[in-house]
């Protein structure tokens, strides 16, 4: 193995270790956030205070070409319960209850993310 190969391999290994460290930190610390935001094609569709949800409910998000994602909300958590895309990655991601990672449906361009609820004003538009 020459120097160039070793350097590139070391750079790659470094990047992987760094990212593994970030993932580890994300999962060891408590992820905060109670404000869920649902976006479709970059537009904010819904804003939900998960700590104020009393009864579980769900609502559909319809997109172009018959695309549909159904979002389910329960006290303290949110998920995409069904989607019309073939890969179903967003459905299999399951419930999220903190800001660690969002739920994303790439084919239908839907994002469900949770952000910090601190300093949240009730006047925010939904």
């Amino acid at each position, binding site marked *: 193995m020459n120097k*160039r*190969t070793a350097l*590139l*391999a070391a750079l*790659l290994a470094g*990047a*992987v270790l760094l*990212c*593994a460290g*970030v*993932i580890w930190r*994300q999962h060891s610390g408590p992820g905060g956030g109670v404000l869920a935001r649902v*976006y479709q*094609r*970059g*537009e904010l569709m819904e804003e939900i205070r998960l700590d104020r949800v009393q009864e579980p409910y769900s609502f559909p998000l319809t997109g172009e070409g018959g695309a549909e994602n159904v979002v389910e909300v329960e006290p303290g958590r949110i998920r995409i319960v069904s989607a019309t*895309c*073939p890969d179903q*990655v*967003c459905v*299999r*991601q*399951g419930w999220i209850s903190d800001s*660690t*990672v*969002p739920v*994303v*449906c*790439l*084919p239908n*361009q839907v*994002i469900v*993310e949770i952000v910090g609820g601190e300093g949240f004003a009730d006047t925010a538009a939904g």
Partner: protein
Amino acid sequence: MRTQRPADGARRITQMALLTAIALTIFMAEAQIPVPIPIPGIKLGLANIVTVYAVFALGPGDALLILVARVFLGAVFSGQMMTLFYSLGGGLLCWLVLLLLSRLLTWKQIWLCSPISAVFHNLGQLLVAAALLGSWTVLAYLPYLVVAGAASGLFTGLCAQLLAGRLKGLGRR
């Protein structure tokens, strides 16, 4: 280092068509395998074996044509035109990195070119996703995609390395 060698038209187009067909078949077969990790963008990327091999065997220019043809046909056959943008964004960044690496490294380091380019493939895909979704939120997936890209890229890289070793005699006249 092997650079693009002058090959006659028929031979070149046959090789490229064959590699495109192989890449497309691998791509379609892989799409049937469910990915155990539910993070958008994570996959084995077996079709990358062909891309990495083509960069070194046929040269970066021909590899790009094979890549673009495979990505386009893959989107058409899977009926998911949205994947076209993600795959193209990832594929082009991956190819740019391979172009650079093919000048720095040689035929013997395909195993290393593949994971590096796979990481950039995932980065490109994520940037396209951020642009299409109009949100930087998706970058939260970056650490996962870097680790997954390096792991799957190493696997496909070793496959391409083995393949290159066996095909070396065949590729020459």
